[in-house]
């Protein structure tokens, strides 16, 4: 395509931004559904994870040897709640059936949500705080600090993450805390880069110079001028990382690197893989739940980006 045409298109896109406010309005109704459905699903998953202890269902590890691989809707006799405090066996309906060891799938999904959400939310939070803070400082002060930070984060990026996880699980054990810290550490460079790049563009803007001219301190400029502008792209990015890490947890389960002591969605998929022929639901039910959750976080991230996009140009 011709260069001049290329220039035209670029210009046309500017013009489009000018006129797109209207197109946005027209899409608003659809947009709201795409915003509220993901929020509703995430809230539901959260609710399940938080309230898992109080529901009248067997513990996720309780094996009902009479109902191994039972199809959805099968009834059985199980102790409700924690095994020690339960008052004998009670009548129970396995709404989603049981796995090959006779464990209730509903219960495992609800408790498994804890692992996925803890890992998925806390690890990015670590990256957000450390990487974001470092990135803002590096982008604002530049100089030696930036050079050092770039060196460190590049090293982290170059280091194969899977080796780090293997080492941690091998030497320190695969606890949820260890995994969260390790994954959080691995997300630091990405957050660092997003924060630094955004800070660089805002630090040059004249409202920052204006604040300096008024006598504002560096810390106050970072917190009051730059942070409000940088935090939104960071949050949007964090939501994408949340979705990514939920998937990563599933992958780690396949490698036997996830939390071995607690049920997790990834673990359920990994275990169900052997029975794909006879009982595909053992794989697909947790996979579907994971899919919906990941999709919801991704959609939420996209919507957030659209909604918080401050238009700085005027018609």
């Amino acid at each position, binding site marked *: 395509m*011709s*260069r001049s045409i*290329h220039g035209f298109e670029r210009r046309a896109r500017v*013009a489009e931004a000018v006129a797109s406010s209207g197109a946005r309005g027209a899409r608003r109704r659809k947009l709201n559904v795409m915003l509220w459905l993901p929020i509703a699903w995430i809230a539901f998953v959260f609710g399940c994870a938080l309230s898992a202890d109080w529901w009248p269902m067997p513990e996720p590890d309780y094996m009902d040897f009479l109902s191994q691989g039972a199809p959805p809707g099968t009834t059985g006799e199980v102790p409700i709640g924690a095994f020690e405090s339960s008052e004998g066996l009670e009548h129970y309906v396995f709404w989603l059936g049981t796995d090959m060891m006779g464990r209730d799938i509903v219960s495992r999904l609800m408790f498994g949500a804890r692992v996925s959400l803890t890992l998925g939310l806390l690890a990015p939070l670590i990256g957000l705080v450390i990487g974001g803070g470092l990135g803002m400082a590096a982008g604002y002060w530049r100089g030696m600090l930036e050079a050092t930070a770039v060196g460190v984060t590049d090293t982290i990026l170059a280091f194969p993450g899977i080796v780090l996880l293997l080492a941690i699980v091998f030497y320190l054990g695969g606890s949820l805390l260890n995994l969260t810290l390790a994954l959080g550490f691995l997300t630091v460079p990405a957050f660092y880069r997003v924060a630094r790049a955004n800070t660089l563009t805002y630090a040059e803007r004249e409202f920052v110079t204006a604040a300096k001219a008024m006598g504002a301190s560096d810390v106050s400029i970072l917190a009051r001028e730059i942070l409000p502008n940088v935090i939104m792209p960071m949050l949007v990015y964090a939501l994408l990382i949340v979705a990514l890490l939920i998937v990563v947890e599933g992958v780690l389960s396949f490698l036997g690197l996830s939390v071995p002591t607690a049920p997790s969605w990834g673990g359920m998929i990994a275990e169900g893989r052997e029975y794909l022929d006879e009982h595909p639901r053992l794989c697909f039910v947790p996979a579907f739940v994971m899919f919906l959750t990941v999709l919801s976080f991704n959609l939420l991230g996209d919507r957030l980006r659209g909604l918080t996009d401050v238009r700085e140009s005027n018609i």
Partner: protein
Amino acid sequence: MLTVSNLRTHFHTGRGIVRAVDGVSFNLARGRTLGIVGESGSGKTVLVRSLLGLLPSTAKFGGETEIGFEGRPLDIRSETALNQVRGRAIAMVFQDPMTSLNPVMTVGAQITESLRYHLGLTGGEARERAVALIDSVGIPMARQRIDQHPHQLSGGLRQRVAIAIALACEPKLLIADEPTTALDVTIQAEILDLLARQQAERDMAMILITHDLGVVAGRADDIAVMYAGRIVERAPTARLFANMRMPYTQALMNAIPRLEAPPNTPLRTIGGRPPDLVNPPPGCRFAPRCPRAESRCTDHEPPLEGGESGHRFACWYPVGEPGAA
């Protein structure tokens, strides 16, 4: 050569229909320069972009809109028809050369690409043409410059390169959209001189868009003043400056700081702001800001007419005539 008749460009947005250009007609003859003057938001940029189809998909043209180019109708709704002319018979120079040039391509590559695409020239030929073009827009050491990237050039040189690209395919009509707004005064004068020289040499028609009457004063043959999507006054340049009839044109003129005025002369400004084009005021669109406005102005829209020797204006109580009783 170019006839624009009743051009209406509307944007359908969530707030309603933005009437960015609302019934504009004009003609432009070969070798002439038309200066279009107006504030930002007056529709002058949308007007020329409509001619080249450089608008977002939300833009819709009015039913009676007719464009004629070189004696043939030009269908501005059809991409194929536009592709025939744009970059070729009609070329455009933009305000900011930094964003209109591709930062990762050399100057030469950007010029030759257009030559190859539109004229089918091959490598060596195209390169020679590019060198000649760069030379003709007054860039010294053309052979070295051709292999440089835009960021290695100053703003003035970049705009010259943008002009060279626009001139590459010998356009019949050159549209310059605020070509000097981003430049220093000294460079501005040079670029405007360059455009005038090229136009004379190539016998092109030119549309020069600006918000500054001073820029078009010595350089356009005719001037059209736009306000809120309409042409409100149009005349040969000398006539217009000698005898401004539309109060808006006069107000634009008064806003320019004059060198001959003593220091600290207060400028006469226009109060208020241009109207919202979703919901323009009834009658004359300038009436709410006009010092001469009467009730007739808010009730009936004045037509663009009147005046001798090609001077037209849309005003019920033009400057130089007594106002309403």
